[in-house]
């Protein structure tokens, strides 16, 4: 299956999309770029810690709502399109903490409508989340907990370093929410640096954290996380992130996203020199 087909077939306007990775690390940028090229609309994004991928999708007007506990460009600054969209009220925010996302996915996984959280009590989260409710222990103690709602993803989009042709995937570094997203999303689309044989996965640390049963489509896409990192292959491309922040988004989109094949994109982004820079 090609990148184009994977997005065309599996992502619908209005879907709740889970994005794997964290911050500048192992984000499925190739898939996000394809979503932009196909001009998908009204998506709700759910990601643990969002960065450039969220900012790009907002800039391209693909997003109507965001669920994340952090969206920023880390040490490089704020995420400009994200800020602008929220400050102007053009997208909705579901205010999340790490645990509301982790437990929301876990609730989906266990097919229960909510999970109890001892935390966020005393914060202002409940004031802006009318789908979170403080309840007393139904088993009779007087302990107060927060009931936080399940998160049922329509599609999870993930990038991994290793996958086999069946969709067993190995993530060399941190898994973060990727496995819970893969298990709970109705569809899971994975891009991978490399296709390996199933037998080889057993020798990779962590083995197949994502089993084939949870994968809907696998597309081989080396450097598919660029300009974010994909451990243990390459680190993030700091220069590209700086360039992104210094350009108007329309300009960026025209130069790097529109009508660009993956190879063309990599060439424009610096080609071999860039690749040599980021490789670990």
């Amino acid at each position, binding site marked *: 299956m090609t990148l184009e087909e994977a997005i065309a077939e599996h992502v619908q306007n209005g879907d709740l999309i889970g994005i794997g990775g*964290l*911050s500048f*690390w192992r984000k499925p940028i190739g898939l996000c770029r394809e979503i932009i090229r196909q001009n998908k609309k009204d998506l709700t994004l759910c990601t643990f*810690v969002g960065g450039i991928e969220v900012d790009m999708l907002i800039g391209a007007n693909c997003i109507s709502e965001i669920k*994340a*506990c*952090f*969206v*920023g460009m*880390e*040490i*490089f600054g*704020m*995420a400009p399109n*994200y*800020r602008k969209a*929220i*400050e102007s*009220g053009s997208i909705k925010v579901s*205010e999340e*903490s*790490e*645990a509301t996302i*982790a*437990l929301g*996915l*876990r609730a989906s996984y266990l097919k229960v409508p909510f999970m109890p*959280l*001892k*935390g*966020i*009590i*005393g*914060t*202002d*989260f409940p*004031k*802006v989340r009318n789908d979170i409710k403080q309840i007393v222990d139904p088993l009779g103690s007087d302990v107060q907990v927060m009931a936080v709602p399940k998160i049922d993803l329509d599609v999870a989009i993930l990038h991994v370093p290793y996958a086999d042709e069946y969709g067993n995937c190995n993530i*060399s*570094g*941190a*898994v*973060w*929410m*990727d*496995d*819970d997203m893969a298990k709970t999303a109705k569809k899971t689309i994975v891009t991978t640096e490399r296709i390996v044989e199933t037998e080889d996965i057993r020798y990779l*640390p*962590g083995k197949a*954290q994502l089993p084939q049963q949870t994968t809907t489509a696998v597309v081989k896409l080396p450097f598919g996380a660029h300009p974010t*990192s994909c*451990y*243990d292959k390459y*680190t*993030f491309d*700091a*220069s590209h992130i*700086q360039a992104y922040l210094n350009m108007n988004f329309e300009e960026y989109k025209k130069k790097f996203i529109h009508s660009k094949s993956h190879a063309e994109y990599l060439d424009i982004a610096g080609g071999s020199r860039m690749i040599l*820079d980021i490789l*670990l």
Partner: protein
Amino acid sequence: MTEIARDYTTDELMTVLMAREVKNDDVMIVGVATPMVWAAFTLAKVTHAPDAIYHYIMGNTFVIEPRQVSLLYLEMNTARAYRFQNSCECTLESLPSDKLTTIEFFRPAQVDQYGNTNNICIGDWKNPKIRLPGCAGIADFSGFYSRGSFLYTPRHDTRTFVPTEKLFFISGVGFPEGKPSMCGGIGPQCMITNLAYLNFDDKTRKMKIGTIHPGVDIETVKNSTGFELIVPEGVNETTPPTVEEIALLREKVDPLGIRKLEVLAGKEREDLLDQIIQKELAMVNRFPKSLSIS
């Protein structure tokens, strides 16, 4: 080797003070984009806390070995991990464990007199003047830590230090209305700033001056704080960094000065960032471990 350093910058003073908070049996949580915290933990590790363990959120890993602070290669610690935490265990693990003596530093955009913090927005949440990146796990964890939570900011001013009614969003619980959080943690322990070392009054739970940095006067601290700061009798001066601490920090722990990105702004910051990136790309061994243990 307790000779006092005469020449140090604010970022160095703050980093040293943060390092001093680490105990030898701590698990030190290194977040993302907090190089000053990483530098502080590594300085602690190579001085008084050799057994402390890094818990890198980047990688969900537990690591023993100290490495030179890096901008581009933080994730390479992953290869040194002796423990991984998959999935949401990472997020939830730190949360309730009575067994972990975790130390984590949070950097709030706003903080009130009770150590409640805001990393969500400036202005009304529905119509913010500035949307901030978010609080990540602060809402979840700050009330739980048995060692308490630790705060820092290099921006000690009345925009950061505000009375509760001007805190636009409580995204991290300190001592709400002067009481400990319901979650069982002991609450904020200190706030380390560019002007002073602040902590909390045992009775009122309100912020007070612990020590004041060399060269800073009490009036400056008070005037830079948007609420009434408790000023105990006879406030001491902060013990400055030692020559050894500064040398380790500059030469071994963070020779590229990555920690400084947390205190600089504008052009100065841009230039340093470029410089760091170029230097890291040019390094042959991109993630050096050559840290001498004193």
